[in-house]
Structures are given as structure tokens and as C-alpha cells.
């Protein structure tokens, strides 16, 4: 799981162009959206959906899942570990 989280952080930084940010700057449990976290926006969540499909073969077809899956890096990693196809 530790390796997955590290890779996921690198992929998120790259996909969202989080300039100057390193994996160590992202707290596993910090909220990805809203105050106190990365402050991502609605376009970013679409990019994260593409990231899941491209890198892990996961199609997030139910929008209602999104809020829980993208709550934090930790929740994303847990979802990936459980549902990844590649």
C-alpha cells in the first residue's frame, strides 16, 4: 500500500500540474477538495477519473462514488487496491 500511495501521489502531481509539489507535501488523509487540502476543482476531479482509468483500468461509472473515492489520497489508494484491473 505504501508503494501504491507514493506512486499515486506522483501521478496526481503530474496529472494536475501541481507545480513545485512533492509526494511528501501531500498528507495521505488531507482532503483533496475544499479548504485545508489541495484545493482541487471540478476539472481536476475529471482528470482524476481519467487517471484511474488510464493507470489502473478502473472505470468510475457511478458519480455518487466520486465523493468518497476522491476524499483523500488514502481513500483513492484503498479504492484502487480493491478495484484495479492493471
Amino acid at each position, binding site marked *: 500500500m505504501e508503494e501504491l500511495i507514493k506512486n499515486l501521489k506522483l501521478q496526481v502531481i503530474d496529472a494536475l500540474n501541481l507545480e513545485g509539489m512533492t509526494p511528501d507535501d501531500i498528507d495521505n488523509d488531507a482532503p483533496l477538495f475544499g479548504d485545508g487540502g489541495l484545493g482541487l476543482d471540478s*476539472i481536476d476531479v475529471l482528470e482524476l477519473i481519467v487517471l484511474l482509468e488510464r493507470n489502473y483500468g478502473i472505470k468510475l461509472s457511478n458519480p455518487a462514488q466520486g465523493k468518497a473515492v476522491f476524499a483523500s489520497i488514502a481513500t483513492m489508494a484503498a479504492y484502487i487496491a480493491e478495484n484495479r484491473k492493471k
Partner: protein
Amino acid sequence: MRIARWCRITPSSVVVDGKAVSVEGTGSLLLKDLYRKFIGDYPKFFKMDTLCRLGVAGAALLDSPGEPREDRAVLIFSASGPLCNDTHYQKTISEEDYFPSPSLFVYTLANIVTGEISIRNHWKGDTSAFVIPGFDAGEIVASTLSCLADPVTRSAICGWAECSGDDSFDLLMVLAARDEGGLPFDAETLDYLYGRTYQEP
């Protein structure tokens, strides 16, 4: 109508009001350096395509964000529009690797650059983006004066912002205002400034 301030950005030089600005790097690195020196608190900059980075950096050289205002227009002219970003987006929709990028898609419209400049600076006046065959000072002046003819608009950020690659761009941007001193806002002056990529001795 006068030019209150003006700037010129090429991949290797930056000039503001006739004076060279010290920058590190060339091309995309130069734009990042302008961000660090003149913007610094707007991470959304790095999500933008090169045309928008160019426009936002140019506007930052001419004015700073303040209270929201409705009397400031933004008019940008270019030949290629967002073509550079379009080519990046096209790669994400190829048959071999079909993962359309939402963040690239949102920059595939020519007028996004005017929106990004306005949002960053809280300018709520008119915005217009024009795709024309090449730099045309007469067209820039005529369209801007037409915009400034309304009773609300008192100034305009306008000019040429061309981007043909992430490291290949060309900007002449001016702050044209009704009631400020400076150079005359006419085609002859814009043509002259367009040739100014360095500080005169």
C-alpha cells in the same frame, strides 16, 4: 486614448515600458520565472495552456489584481489561437491511446485567455478574442477603440498574443486608457513597440 503601460514578451526577452526585465530561462521556463517574480500566489497558472500563461503573465506586468472593476476590457488577438494546446489535446484522443484530457479540453477555445486574464485580475468588463492572419496594429487599435466607445469602459488590456509551441510565443500587450498619460494609442505606435524586444541603449 493613450498607452499607460506596455510590455513585450518573446521566448528570450521581456520588456516593460521600454526597459528590459531580468528573467531566467527561455521559452516555457521564462514564463515560469515571470510567474515567480510577478504573480507567485496563483497555482492555477500551472494548469493553464501556454497561450493563457503568456496572456496572464503579460497582464501581470502591466497591472495588479485589485478590487473588482467593470470598466476594464480585455482584447486579445492571435493567429493560432489555442492551436498549441489543441495539438496536446489531440494526442489524448488518438485511437491508440484514447484518454481525453478534461484539463486540456477546457483550453481548446481561443477566448479562454481573455477569461483567465479577467478572472485572475477581477476585471469584469468586455472580453474579446480575435483570430486574425497576423500581427495587425490597425486592427488591434480599431477594435479596442470600438470597445472603449461605450460609456462604461475606461481602459483596456489589449494586444497580440501568439503561441505556436510551448517554447515559441510572442506577445505585445498594452494598457490603453482614456485619461492617462503615455504614448499615443495608434497603429504607428503599436508597430513601433512590436519591434522593441530589447532595451534601447
